[in-house]
């Protein structure tokens, strides 16, 4: 049953490996942004009333910098999602027909692609970057290294959380992509998606910085599982019970959003006029 989707998994992995140059440029941009953020946080902490050792919303400056670096690596590895643009071009060029005549589900093809991309990105960048930065932060005392079993368990939980984040991100992107069925245009949809995602996922700044009630709402939204929660799991900011809670929340959201996506697809596909020919 899943075998039919193997080529799509392989193809998206191969695409990323082939367009290495693109990735390197993207990596450079990401690193530059990250450096800016690190300096920004430094000056925020230094200029606050209590000096460099102030704790802001539960983060001291070391934790804040580790959080910033880790989210950057994390989003670089998991957010390289082409789903919306692929749907957009399928609609524009009418190539959606090519997939609809094959014995595969349109959704399944994208899930396979997302997983393929994630695997290759984790191997090429995720594992080495996390290993290096974790070691460096450990050596300079930014991270207190926990007992070995805590570390192993949290890394395992983190990997699960990361995988769920990939699925969740792809589901959200897919839903936004499906709106191309109605709009036949992608730029606006993608900007909206990117803004919502980076704001509510804690990529821009941890959700602890939001005002109280708003913060609670955002924590229940699907976006927190996209980057903040996996990183906080890795940094041992959650006890085991909380870890299970946030993982459960992500799984619940994936199910709900997949059902919603199914509904939109079935409605939208009736509106599709396959262009040309």
């Amino acid at each position, binding site marked *: 049953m899943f*075998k*039919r989707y*193997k*080529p799509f998994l392989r*193809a998206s992995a191969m695409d990323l490996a082939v367009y290495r140059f693109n990735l390197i440029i993207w990596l450079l941009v990401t690193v530059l942004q990250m450096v800016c953020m690190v300096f920004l946080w430094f000056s925020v902490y230094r200029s606050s009333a209590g000096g460099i050792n102030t704790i802001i919303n539960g983060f001291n400056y070391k934790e804040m910098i580790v959080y910033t670096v880790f989210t950057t690596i994390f989003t670089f590895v998991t957010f390289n999602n082409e789903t919306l643009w692929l749907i957009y071009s399928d609609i524009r*060029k*009418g*190539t*959606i*027909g*090519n997939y*609809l*005549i*094959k*014995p*595969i*589900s349109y959704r399944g093809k994208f899930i396979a692609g997302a997983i393929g991309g994630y695997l290759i990105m984790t191997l090429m960048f995720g594992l080495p970057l996390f290993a290096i930065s974790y070691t460096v932060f450990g050596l300079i005392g930014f991270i207190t290294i926990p007992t070995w079993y805590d570390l192993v368990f949290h890394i395992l939980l983190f990997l699960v959380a990361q995988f769920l984040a990939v699925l969740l991100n792809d589901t959200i992107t897919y839903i936004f992509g499906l709106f191309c069925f109605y709009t036949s245009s992608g730029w606006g949809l993608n900007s909206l998606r990117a803004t919502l995602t980076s704001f509510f996922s804690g990529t821009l700044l941890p959700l602890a910085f939001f005002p109280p009630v708003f913060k609670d709402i955002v924590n229940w939204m699907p976006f927190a599982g996209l980057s903040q929660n996996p990183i906080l799991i890795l940094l041992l900011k959650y006890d085991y019970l909380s870890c299970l809670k946030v993982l459960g929340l992500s799984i619940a959201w994936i199910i709900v959003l997949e059902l919603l996506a199914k509904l939109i697809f079935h409605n939208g*596909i*009736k509106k*599709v*006029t*396959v262009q*040309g*020919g």
Partner: protein
Amino acid sequence: MIELINLTKEFKKPIRGKGLSGMIKTLFSRKYEVIEAVKDVSFKINEGEIVGYIGSNGAGKSTTIKMMCGILNPTRGKVLIDGVEPYQKRKQIASKIGVVFGQKTQLWWDIPLIESFKVLKEIYQISDKDYQERLQFLFDVLSLDKFLSQPVRTLSLGQRMRADLAASLLHNPEILFLDEPTIGLDVLAKQKIREAIKAMNAKYKTTVILTTHDMNDIENLCSKVIMIEKGSIIYDGPLMKIKHKFGNIKTLVLSVNPDLDIGSVAKFDGDIDIKKEEDRVDIRFNADKIKLESVINYAFSVLKATDMKVSDISIEDVVKKILSEQEKGK
């Protein structure tokens, strides 16, 4: 078996105002006009038949095909393939059908052709044995070996079409939909495509539904013709019957002495149409009413023909005549 029952597809098209002010107006109020691309179409196609589905541009051919392969949902009516509606059980029907849209490729643009085939092998879950056997068969009838390792974007149109046809046949579909498979191809490439379709139909009893503007395709391949015009079926029956719609029209082409004056020789006793140009004379007549023998006699004894060719009316002429009558009727 394929069955279409009162199949109708309507498209909603926004009416746009002219110019910039019109564009701004359409942003706020949208009026739609409903276009019926396919109206109340019903027909049946049996297993193993090769059916020509013809009509002018925009007549509704592709829209019908897209509904038959499950890409488009009909507005009303239904399509049944072995009793199943393809747009409702899309995945189930997909393994039974093969589709070629002549105007766009289904192959992966950047990867070598053979890799595309391997991807299809996985998608359709074809066993190694079946894959090898069919690939060999398709190689033989379509001569793909010369460009098998080239990326699809580097293929010529004729090569690409052969590759697309092979791709649609790899999983041995029961039904093959071909939407203009010979569009833009040279004579030899067309020939190859036709031979492959014939071979596939003979070997695997594949049902073929073919749309085309090349009436040679129809005459070479199809036993049955369905004609659609402005969304409605205007003919559904055997090829021979549509050819004789205006009687059994035959044309005699003669070589004669260029100095021969048609006006001065004895007239033929009956309703025939004679045209002379240089050393060539064309005689058109209805063979149901006038004996071929008597016309040939007349050609040799009166017109002193030195050479002669008899040909049936081409389907192209019939279609032209039907279409122009439709135009006049409107």
